[in-house]
């Protein structure tokens, strides 16, 4: 085996699957193992390094610091893609550029956002949250009062039920991982447990539902099972350590980890405890699915286990044969990720990827797989399992159960259906160009 960590003794190359996938244990030794893998493969590329000199930026006094820093000017392309950049009088989507990010935390400014009637300009001093209906005593909360409660914080992904919808197309669209999968993001959220507030109001033990409503210009509302409210829901007031971004629900939102993004009601202003689901517009129409044969799914809630490779992916293109790290994110609305398998030969053979700690409940887990590309055509795929044993379906299985369009989509902005969680395939040709393929 090639897992020696002793300095000066690089492990030998240990292939675990076809087309050059290397045992993930090679990553344990980090630089040493990487050098070993490359050396053993005999595939070090590029000319030798040039003699060093001091650069101009090291020889002069630097710029002043702004009160709130933003990304380097060289990173200006790391931006969300917008479905409605001119602010036309309709809904708007901003997608996270996953193909340009790493780690597990989505920077707040790059968190995806969908707004059906623009982003409301809410004065946090005037905003109110009311809890009423089947409770002993209706109560009103403000951002100030909620901020005085003991806060709970956790990592959680939020995913639009329509994320990855372009993959319902019967032909693969040639767009980035961000364009396909950009309606999921992952943040640390801090807030007050919803159960604390419901208990304070004294919820009727018979009640099974509540309806949560926002203060946007649609008064967007969704029915939420009380069961979820008492499991792990919170009223979130911080995102990655700062107050919520306006497009993510400022000043407060409902967080129902692992459930459809739309249920994580933003600009939360009202929770009414009720005895039946409300069949609101969004749960009736948009966030409900048509199945092959014409039956429909409603109250789906759960965002099922999923993963996708972010590096390398469409738009990156490989610079020549040699060592690469395949990397991506995996997550499940059911719980923790248990395992991610990676293939470089379109699913003929698979090797287990390394999971970066910590692996958290209903949150992004970053996986990595060392890989030596031999310059021949390859198809990269990832497939995730969660701790409950749920597995990400192969495309053929998924299409058999959920269907695909009869005509190819012409835009990645379309939502032919919801809850796509099958695997993504990136096809690499001999020139290193990467295309989105179905395999």
């Amino acid at each position, binding site marked *: 085996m090639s897992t020696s960590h002793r300095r000066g003794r690089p492990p030998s190359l240990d292939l675990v699957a076809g087309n050059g996938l290397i045992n993930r244990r090679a990553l344990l030794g980090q630089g040493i193992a990487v050098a070993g893998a490359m050396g053993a493969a005999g595939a070090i590329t590029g000319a030798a390094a040039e003699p060093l000199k001091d650069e101009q930026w090291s020889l002069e006094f630097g710029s002043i610091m702004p009160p709130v820093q933003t990304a380097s000017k060289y990173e200006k392309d790391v931006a969300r893609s917008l479905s409605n950049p001119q602010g036309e009088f309709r809904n708007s989507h901003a997608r996270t550029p996953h193909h340009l990010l790493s780690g597990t935390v989505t920077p707040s400014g790059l968190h995806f956002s969908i707004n059906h*009637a623009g982003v409301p300009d809410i004065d946090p001093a005037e905003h109110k949250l009311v809890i009423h209906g089947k409770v002993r005593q209706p109560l009103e909360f403000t951002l100030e009062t909620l901020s005085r409660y003991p806060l709970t914080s956790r990592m959680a992904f939020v995913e639009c039920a329509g994320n990855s919808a372009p993959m319902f197309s019967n032909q693969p669209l040639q767009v980035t991982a961000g364009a396909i999968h950009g309606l999921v993001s992952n943040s640390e959220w801090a807030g007050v447990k919803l159960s604390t507030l419901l208990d304070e109001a004294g919820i009727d033990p018979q009640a099974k539902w509540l309806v949560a409503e926002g203060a946007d210009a649609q008064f967007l509302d969704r029915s939420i099972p009380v069961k979820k409210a008492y499991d792990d829901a919170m009223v979130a007031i911080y995102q990655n350590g700062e107050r919520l971004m306006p497009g993510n629900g400022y000043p407060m939102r409902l967080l129902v980890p692992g459930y459809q993004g739309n249920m994580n009601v933003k600009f939360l202003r009202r929770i009414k405890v009720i005895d*039946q689901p409300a069949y609101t517009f969004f749960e009736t129409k948009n966030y409900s699915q048509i199945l092959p044969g014409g039956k429909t799914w*409603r109250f789906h809630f759960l965002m099922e286990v999923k993963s996708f490779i972010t590096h390398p992916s469409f738009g990156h293109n490989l610079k020549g044969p040699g060592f690469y790290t395949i990397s991506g994110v995996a997550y499940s609305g059911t719980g923790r990720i248990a395992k991610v398998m990676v293939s470089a030969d379109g699913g003929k053979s698979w090797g287990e990827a390394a999971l970066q700690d910590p692996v958290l409940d209903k949150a992004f887990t970053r996986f990595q797989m060392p890989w030596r590309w031999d310059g021949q055509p390859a198809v990269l795929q990832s497939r995730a399992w969660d701790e409950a044993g749920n597995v990400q379906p192969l495309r053929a299985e998924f299409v058999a159960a959920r269907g695909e369009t009869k005509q190819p989509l012409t835009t990645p902005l379309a939502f032919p259906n919801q809850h796509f969680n099958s695997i993504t395939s990136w096809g690499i040709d001999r020139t290193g160009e990467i295309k989105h393929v179905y395999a």
Partner: protein
Amino acid sequence: MSMRKPLLALTLAFAFATGAAFAQSPAPSPGLGKPISEPDIKAWDIAVLPDGTNLPAGSGTSAQGAKVYAEKCIACHAEGGKGGGSPGAGPLVGGAPLTNGIDTAKTIANYYAYATTVFDYIRRAMPYNAPRSLKDEEVYALTAYILALNKLIGENDVMDAKTLPQVKMPNRDNFIMPYPDRI
């Protein structure tokens, strides 16, 4: 560890105070919620339930709704609810069978389970440029107009808190809950 007994005592005290009927899982709370009465919440209390719970007083007919529609809706939803007057303003009338494919456009007639959803959404979100500006009578009238366009009610049927929940929507019994144990 020394905190345990007082915390337990406090929990028990709170449980007794809340009474048996409402104490689901009582826990000590900072108690910073400000009591408010249901009458003071009324202006916000707009969610209508499928059985008609929370429908307001008032009524409307298709003929009355046609007038409101011509004034406040037609610019986006086009004549006769055909849609296409504005991006995102889909058709309010018609709809293909859901057996046509997984990307069949979802409409009121081919998809909605309850007519109360039509009333609720018009009242909370329409017109798109002026939500909450319609009177309840206008919302009833527009709901009647749209349901009649779809032949889901008769031309002269009156929609009110009693009749609206009784409208049978074609797709009501055609759905599956994938995860019933989560409710």
